[in-house]
């Protein structure tokens, strides 16, 4: 088990703080591991996937005795030590040739993993074409009707997106979209099992067209892999649900009390509090004042007159 590190200087403290749970997370780091036996195809595939994932990737060059489907405690240790939550394990055996296992962690515990075996793979170095720069954000496309239906396909789609989408940003430079990863699902086998999937990577070339929108041409950059699905371990439903929770700060905020009327004008509602109309302070208009002083005067003069008359009467 890893010992909990108490920071003794500011740099270590910063690193530990960076590794904590945050509302907006870091880009996931991936670890590329070789199993106890690998083949040329597997090595090439791992090298290519590593290059696409750089700089958020760690490459373990030595071979490890690792069998993820039997024992995934190694993965937990690697995940904690390197602060990585994505794994690609490449193995080759007679029973399962040229196999890549994609695994994901949540809170350093295994979330889900799946196995694909490479039928035919062409590495990047075999394509004598210009490659995109390291660390660029790719575009994705998933062709075929199986991507929403079969659990293998759903998980693979989620894995590829998770691995390579980089940072979730709210704006992207139009000139910075350099390459596209295209995954196509082949037809199902005659037994009704999932068929092959074809992964291709292309660089994007924008050409002039007569109109504002550019014409897209693709140049294959590699890697190119034809794969079939193997074993799969799905995530436990409660852990999966917990991993999908969005923090309150990142939820889209609803704007209340603003609507658009029929004419297209924006209309807002303002809520006033309760008003006590008797106690509202208004402007003072002297002419509208209650005539209390003048009525008194009249009454007094009237009385005086009475008294005079009386005295007159008495005399």
């Amino acid at each position, binding site marked *: 088990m890893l010992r909990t590190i108490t920071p003794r200087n500011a740099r270590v403290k910063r690193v530990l703080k960076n590794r904590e749970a945050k509302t907006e997370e870091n880009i996931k780091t991936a670890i590329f591991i070789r199993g106890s036996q690998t083949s040329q195809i597997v090595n090439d595939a791992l090298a290519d996937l590593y290059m696409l994932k750089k700089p958020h990737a760690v490459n373990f060059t030595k071979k490890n005795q690792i069998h993820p489907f039997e024992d995934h405690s190694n993965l937990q240790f690697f995940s904690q030590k390197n602060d990585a939550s994505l794994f690609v394990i490449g193995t080759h055996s007679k029973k399962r040739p040229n196999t890549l296992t994609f695994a994901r962690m949540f809170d350093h515990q295994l979330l889900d993993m799946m196995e694909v075996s490479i039928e035919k793979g062409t590495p990047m170095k075999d394509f004598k074409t210009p490659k995109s720069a390291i660390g660029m954000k790719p575009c994705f496309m998933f062709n075929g009707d199986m991507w929403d239906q079969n659990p293998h396909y759903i998980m693979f789609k989620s894995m590829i997106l998770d691995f390579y989408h980089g940072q979730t940003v709210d704006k992207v430079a139009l000139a910075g979209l350099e390459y596209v990863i295209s995954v196509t699902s082949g037809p199902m086998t005659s037994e009704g099992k999932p068929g092959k999937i074809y992964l291709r990577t292309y660089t994007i070339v924008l050409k002039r067209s007569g109109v504002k*929108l550019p014409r897209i041409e693709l140049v294959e950059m590699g890697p190119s892999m034809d794969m079939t699905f193997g074993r799969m371990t799905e995530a436990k439903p409660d852990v999966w649900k917990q991993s999908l929770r969005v923090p309150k700060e990142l939820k889209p905020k609803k704007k209340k009390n603003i609507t658009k009327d029929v004419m297209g004008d924006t209309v807002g509602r303002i809520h006033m509090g309760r008003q006590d109309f008797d106690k509202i302070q208004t402007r003072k208009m002297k002419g509208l004042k209650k005539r209390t002083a003048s009525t008194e005067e009249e009454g007094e003069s009237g009385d005086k007159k009475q008294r005079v008359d009386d005295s007159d009467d008495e005399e």
Partner: protein
Amino acid sequence: MDVSGVLEAHKQKFKSVSVEGKVIPLEYDLGLLTAYDQNPIDEALLKKNKDEYLQSLSRDNAQLLFNEIFQLPTISDDNGVMAMLPTPTTLLPREKPLPKPKPETRWEKFAKAKGIVNRKKERMVFDDNTGEYKPRWGYKGINDDGSKDWIIEVPAGSNPMEDQYEARRDAKKERIDKNDKRRQRNMEEAAVASKMDQKTVNKGERPNMDNARSMKRKEIENQILISKSSTASVGKFDEAIKGDLKPKGIKRKFEPNVTADLSKEKAGNMSILDRVVGKNGEDLVNVRKAIKATKSRK
């Protein structure tokens, strides 16, 4: 002058940016720059020349995706033209759980109540004495406690024999200790506050103690009471200590010895019997297992 002919000729020079033949329109998740094409794959073409077919299919979909991206609102930045992306619709799992909100420190509570807002201050401040800019805090800062002054005036009310340099050093030490105490207190209160939250989560009720210190005191008192009764004779024969805590709220209720209602007595006795012998004549001992165990022991 008919310009449309010229325009047409101009357009013919370039390849088209529109893509036909997509029966089902593509779905886009522009937050992740993704396009989902549900149209069925042409298996014949796939078999014949796989790579060419895949490239042409990808090119068409990329064209459509880019057409969508270029329709987004853009802003001009130092990095060039940036397109504003919407939030992604595809849910991807996080790598770590949501952060737990840290309990507020005493100052944070006070500041919140008073409405004090933390305004960012400049690092460098102009020092009138030296006429140059110095950091507000830290190394060679202006509020350096003055222990490095070459001369210190003896303040009005103090002992003239006192060492003022030492006095300043002691004052700084005291301030550091006070700060440390406050930091410790904050950490304790945070620990108790987080424990309190757990308890209420388990019980489903709100605690009526706002003071973290008194919560901790209650915890300690509980622990003392538990330890008092953890002797061999359950604390009965211990000597009473002066000023010791008395356990509160423990009352023993005894039923009267002779009651008119004998059914209660019967029910009590029967429940004891059930627990000892077993209900309805069942054995509490699993006979088969007991036999096996004795056999294996032998």
